């Protein structure tokens, strides 16, 4: 229940992020009793690298406090969309935070926005979008995989997002979006193998007042080319295709040996030679703060194509109303 708004104290049923270090973060459902493989009800104890954690000991603690493990410690954090993306159970390849940020920005999401998304996948983006458009907005999300859609539905419900997210199993490439979204959406997001097939349906879903946004996420450039062509043919404007990668740096204390001892060696003066010998006896070292890129950064995620849809035939509609006005006059 902890996903729909920030809270301070952990209660039973909340999802909690257990933070040991940036490489070891786990999303845990705070339940005091779980069923084991034999179906018996047992106390929920989590095993980590640094020892066991009794889940029931978390209740009543504040999010952000330190908890003791049997051989160390960890922090319990609030499951923000960013942390959830890092820890969620993968059912598919997911969209990561840098892309999520950009997608939400390019779709111009704000509280109250109505968004249509396909496919749901593991719900990484859906959670982030739901957090962004709440409390008055809504996400309609579709996935053609029945089991995945079902799991997603369950997840949204248990996370308290069912008021904000409507999840359905539907093949939007063939059947389009459900009727409830026609003419309602402020933005459409497509992450599926053939986004170009869905563009006509997307136009139907977008608000008729114009200015609706569409964004597609495709890992392959061929998909992008097809999508762009279809978008252009359907009168979308402001087409841009971008690729954004986040480079992360690590800041470390490092020591290097320097050449200061060697420089004085060629000198003929015996005293300075002695001095140099003394210096070179212990190699000179320099300490500094190094900023190095992380070891294996992501080289490619996907291309983001975004476009704006203007009104459908604004002239004809407006000339009609103008004609009426004239008649009245």
């Amino acid at each position, binding site marked *: 229940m902890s996903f729909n708004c920030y809270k*301070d104290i952990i209660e039973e049923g909340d999802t909690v992020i257990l933070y040991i270090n940036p490489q070891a973060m786990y999303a845990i459902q705070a339940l005091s009793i779980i069923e084991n493989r034999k179906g018996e009800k047992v106390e929920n104890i989590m095993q980590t690298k640094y020892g066991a954690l009794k889940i029931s000991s978390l209740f009543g603690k504040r999010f952000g406090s330190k908890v003791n493990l049997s051989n160390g410690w960890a922090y319990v954090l609030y499951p923000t969309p960013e942390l959830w993306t890092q820890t969620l159970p993968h059912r598919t390849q997911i969209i990561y935070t840098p892309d999520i940020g950009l997608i*939400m*920005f390019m779709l111009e999401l704000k509280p109250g926005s109505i968004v249509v998304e396909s496919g749901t996948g593991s719900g990484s983006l859906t959670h982030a979008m739901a957090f962004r458009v709440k409390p008055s907005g809504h996400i309609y999300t579709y996935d053609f995989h029945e089991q995945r859609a079902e799991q997603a539905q369950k997840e949204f419900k248990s996370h308290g997002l069912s008021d904000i997210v409507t999840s359905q199993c539907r093949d939007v490439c063939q059947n389009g979006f459900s009727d409830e979204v026609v003419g309602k959406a402020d933005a459409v997001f497509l992450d599926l193998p053939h986004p170009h097939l869905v563009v006509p349906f997307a136009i139907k879903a977008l608000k008729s007042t*114009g200015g609706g946004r569409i964004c597609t996420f495709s890992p392959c450039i061929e998909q992008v080319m097809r999508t762009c062509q279809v978008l252009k043919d359907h009168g979308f404007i402001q087409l841009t295709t971008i690729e954004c990668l986040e480079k992360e740096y690590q800041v470390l204390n490092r020591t290097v040996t320097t050449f200061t001892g060697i420089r004085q060696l060629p000198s003929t003066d015996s005293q300075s030679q002695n001095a140099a010998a003394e210096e070179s006896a212990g190699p000179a070292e320099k300490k500094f703060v190094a900023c190095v890129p992380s070891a294996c950064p992501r080289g490619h995620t996907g291309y983001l*194509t975004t476009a704006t849809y203007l009104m459908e035939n604004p002239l004809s509609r407006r000339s009609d109303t103008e004609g009426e006005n004239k008649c009245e006059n």
Partner: protein
Amino acid sequence: MTATSVENMITPGHYLIINKNETYLIHQISNKAILKLGRDVIDLKMAIGQSYSSTYKLEPVTDKKRHYTLVVCNDNQARNQWATNGCGTDNKLITDDSSSQLLSTDEIIALKESGETGQNIVERLLKNSKTFQLKTEYAQEKYLKKKARKYCDYITIFKPTIRLITDVLYKQQTIPKTIALRFDTLAQILCRINLDPGGKYLLYENGSQGLLQAALLNQLHDNGSLVHIFSSTSEQNPLKAVKAMNFSESKIKQMLTVSLDEILNTKSEYDIPEEKVEEVVFNCSDDKKRKSDEAYTQLKKKHRPITSTDGLNFIQSNKFDGLIVVCREEPNEFVKILLPYLSLSRPFVVYSAYKEILVTMYAEFKMRRDLVFLRLTDNFLRHHQVLPNRTHPDVTMDDGSGYLFSGLFVTVICQTYEYSLTADSEENYICGFSKKQIQDTLLYAKKYPTKGIALNYACLKEQNIGNDRCLTEQYKLIECLRKECFLTNEQGNEITKGTNIPKDQILKNQEIKKRYQESIVKGNEELDNAVKYYEETMLEHLQSIDNLMKKRIYVDDINIALTNLKIELTAAIRRQMLNINIDQNLNLLY
């Protein structure tokens, strides 16, 4: 008409985003509705009352040179299209001898000033081009695109959105004292701060022309709030983006403003940043300072009945859900001041155009135990040209996204609550501490009645138990003492074990035993002195902690004081333990 369609209509006084070909600009439409675009003058009257996102054709005014009016135009017609008759396969026949265009420059200018439409001008240009038919179809497309840009006579008016405003402002990087925030960086900031529409956010922004305030306000729901700390050294038009968003009065009211100086003045005198900021203030010329101050007071008069003292109160009485710092200054010290205002498990994001600044900050913050998930990043952003058979990344690339440093604020205290208490009413809590916890603390204070703790407890009482910070510090201190006691107990046991064996030998020798006793008597005197000294120093330390508590808490100072205290305490308690052990052993002897 429904409310939404009124909102979606162009009204005088509103800001618009005007798009002509590939240029975008922010424009406030006045009653006169005149827009000057380069050398052209465009009358926007026709657009008033129309809905946003529609396209208009520029119709030349017959009696005035380069004056235009608007005619609403269907989107499909708005795309200039010219017929091309065949094309070449390569460019081997095309030579650059400046003779391919038969029309002279003067003739072209005359054409333009005669009020000819762009469509016709380009047609004439094509007709008079010797080489156009020889160009490949791609080159023709490129040529037409270039001409269309020059002779475009369509504009589209958009409703201002953060995306468009960011773009417009980014392209005007040359304005002095501003930060050019690229859209992906802004997107990343909004994402890293995990913006909750109902949350409370603390922002220090200087130089982004109000882009951050606008973006955050745009993301907040009616119950959210934003406190903006402004600097007197801000740029010329510090709220450009906020104005451009056409926010309603009530929306603007969700933003409280506090001056940077006020925040710093509430800090105690030994804070380094205060001096630093003062320097900055002195450095900037008085004129500029006055100007920006005026701008702010004007704005306050216009938009904000809430004075900045309210903002200050709001800061002090609330915990925030996120801290954002985007500025041209070195943010390190300032961020340290603002961090304690965050709720636990909440993020902070700092933007700087320079990596070095954030690296120093990272190195320092890494040592702190109350911050986790620290990340220093920048973005690699590439635009792609997507055209049939000509898809590739754009030739030029922009590598100036700036750097972001973010993390989560947590607590070092291992807090233990009784779960049963959480279910009770809030009255059981005093500033997040359960009553039982406080009782435990007090019991502990009674059980180990060192003067320091008693004194600290008295101070706590005096200062009203509701003081969250005081209580936290008290709790921290007690936690510390408890640990020390535990440690010294263990160490004491070790000492007992270690000394037992030699003492067995000592037993046999009465003389040695006597000497031993004498030394103990002496030692006891020394110990008494030591304990006295220790109590005094402890008092001093605790008083210094009290002083800190009366002012604003600065975690580092407290830590230093506590460390000193710990050292004293460990030494003293170890001595006491030794003493006790010896006494016990001696008792066994007799």
